[in-house]
């Protein structure tokens, strides 16, 4: 009897080992691997609901105070982990009104009360997503939630990151976890190499134009292929940033040496890197050859109304905006400066330049870019979401037209509902500001 029991135990053991082996053989993409790890499972499948542990949680002053207010209603006294929460003031900084100042005050008071060291106040940081990345709060393999839709940006470094609302964030503050449905994944393979003055922004606009503003709802969008392998971290951030504009839960890139080097230079925390299995499953795969890609523009009033920029050349503009979490990094400012150096923007046009962070601002200063911008007649603003958010500065009047390096051209996004917004690359923003009308950067360089 004893012997029998023993052997049946062994049998069970060997069965369960075999189960583990079989399960482990099931291939997964990077999104599934991160969600499996964060929910302490061996395997997850699209459609499953998991309770996932959160590595980092971020709020800004637009969504944060509501989360803080709601957290207090829960009745939990202390946040789950004061080292894993990041608070950033960025949307309306410096405070433009007493009401904004009150929101900022709520954020500061919460950081103090909960002893949260990672508060990026006015002058410390900049646009929340840029701050998260450059301060080393995003590491590959982590699960990160932010109370801001462009949290998906962090996928560029191989993390699973997604936007959530304030109530959900309050629950995360209390418990450190949330439920997530494992998304099915769309893979986008970029082949070929970019022509001069054609940028990652043009590629992501082209992709959104094809897939549509709701083409990736609830899904993870994985970017891969030589076009991504050869892309800078800054370009990958631009791509992942706009994944939400096609409805995606996240945008993600398998971390390579370039991404790992970027992260290791900014954090000394350890992390576990995940990569998609070679034969992982995807709901769909799209291929885009960037050899043939032209500069693109998203025309009003939606992000998926995308055309080659040459089709709208000549549209007269009143304002050009260079900045945002999409295209407010050093690489973007450098590209714009290539066109603006030694030239002056068209009289009657306003060019607003808003570096995405204090770090970018300082680098732009040290590189002489700010001088180029000022001499070109641009207005250099402090790091903030600024004109992209349409809250406190750079607003548009009815009938005005803006070309912007940001991510949304919704009706009323940057001020009056009767204003129009065209989304394009930093190169297109710069040349259009010089010409006073929308111009293809390639035709400008030939002229």
């Amino acid at each position, binding site marked *: 009897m004893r012997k029998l029991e023993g052997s049946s135990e062994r049998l069970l053991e060997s069965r369960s080992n075999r189960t583990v082996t079989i399960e482990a053989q099931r291939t997964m993409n990077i999104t599934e691997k991160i969600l499996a790890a964060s929910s302490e499972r061996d395997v997850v499948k699209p459609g499953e609901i998991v309770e996932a542990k959160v590595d980092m949680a971020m709020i800004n002053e637009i969504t944060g105070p509501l989360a803080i207010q*709601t957290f207090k209603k829960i009745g939990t006294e202390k946040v789950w982990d004061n080292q894993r929460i990041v608070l950033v003031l960025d949307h309306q900084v410096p405070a433009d009104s007493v009401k904004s100042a009150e929101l900022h005050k709520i954020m500061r008071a919460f950081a103090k009360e909960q002893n949260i060291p990672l508060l990026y106040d006015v002058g410390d940081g900049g646009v929340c997503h840029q701050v998260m990345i450059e301060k080393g709060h995003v590491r590959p393999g982590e699960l990160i939630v932010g109370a801001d839709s462009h949290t998906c940006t962090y996928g560029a470094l191989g993390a699973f990151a997604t936007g959530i609302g304030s109530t959900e964030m309050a629950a995360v503050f209390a418990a450190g976890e949330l439920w997530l449905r494992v998304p099915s994944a769309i893979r986008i393979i970029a082949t070929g190499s970019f022509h001069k003055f054609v940028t990652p922004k043009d590629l992501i606009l082209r992709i959104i134009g094809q897939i549509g503003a709701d083409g990736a709802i609830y899904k993870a969008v994985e970017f891969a292929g030589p076009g991504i392998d050869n892309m800078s971290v800054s370009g990958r951030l631009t791509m992942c940033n706009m994944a939400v504009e096609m409805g995606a839960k996240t945008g993600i890139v398998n971390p390579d040496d370039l991404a790992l080097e970027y992260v290791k230079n900014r954090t000394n925390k350890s992390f576990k890197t995940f990569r998609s299995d070679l034969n992982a499953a995807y709901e769909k795969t799209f291929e885009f050859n960037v050899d043939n890609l032209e500069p693109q523009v998203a025309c009003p009033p939606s992000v998926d109304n995308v055309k080659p920029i040459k089709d709208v050349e000549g549209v007269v503009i009143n304002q050009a905006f260079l900045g945002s979490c999409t295209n407010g990094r050093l690489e973007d400012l450098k590209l714009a400066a290539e066109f603006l150096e030694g030239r002056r923007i068209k009289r009657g046009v306003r060019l607003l330049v808003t570096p995405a962070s204090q770090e970018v601002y300082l680098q732009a200063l040290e590189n002489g870019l700010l001088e180029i911008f000022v001499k070109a007649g641009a207005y250099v603003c402090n790091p903030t979401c600024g004109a992209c958010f349409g809250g406190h500065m750079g607003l548009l009047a009815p009938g005005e037209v803006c070309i912007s390096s940001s991510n949304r051209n*919704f009706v009323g996004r940057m001020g009056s509902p009767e204003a129009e917004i065209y989304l394009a690359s930093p190169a297109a923003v710069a040349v259009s500001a010089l010409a006073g009308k929308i111009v293809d950067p390639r035709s400008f360089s030939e002229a």
Partner: protein
Amino acid sequence: MEVSGKAVIFGDNVNTDVIIPSKYLTSLDPLEMAKHAMEGLDPIFAKKAQNGVIIVAGRNFGCGSSREQAPIALKYAGVKCILVESFARIFYRNAINIGLPLFERTGISKDIEEGDILTIILEEGKVVNRTKGQTLYASKLPDFILEIIKDGGLIEHLKK
């Protein structure tokens, strides 16, 4: 549990910037947010919604920013339920978390007209169009989501 109201129709890709424009996000008062509900598309929506309305719309409703002020503004303006072809995911979660019922059904924006009087039985996803004498079925909500909505939102649900 059922909710009723007059149908108000919107199109595809209704984004959170038109549901509540950025300039109003400095307020933490739901009633203040409600005054500006849908202002980007219909400046008198808040007035229309006072007596209880059901929003019927197309694809990708609530796309854009993660601002929870969007579903809050709708709820406090008098929106009882949202019936659409599809939702953007952050809005969907936010609406559930603040206890605003919402359902998806392919083709719904073509089946219902402005002003139709609707009653929705939340447990079944059943939509009774009293004006047209029709009954439609939207996708049922998973039980745990239904419970959150019936409790009035995530926080109230957690407290239970």
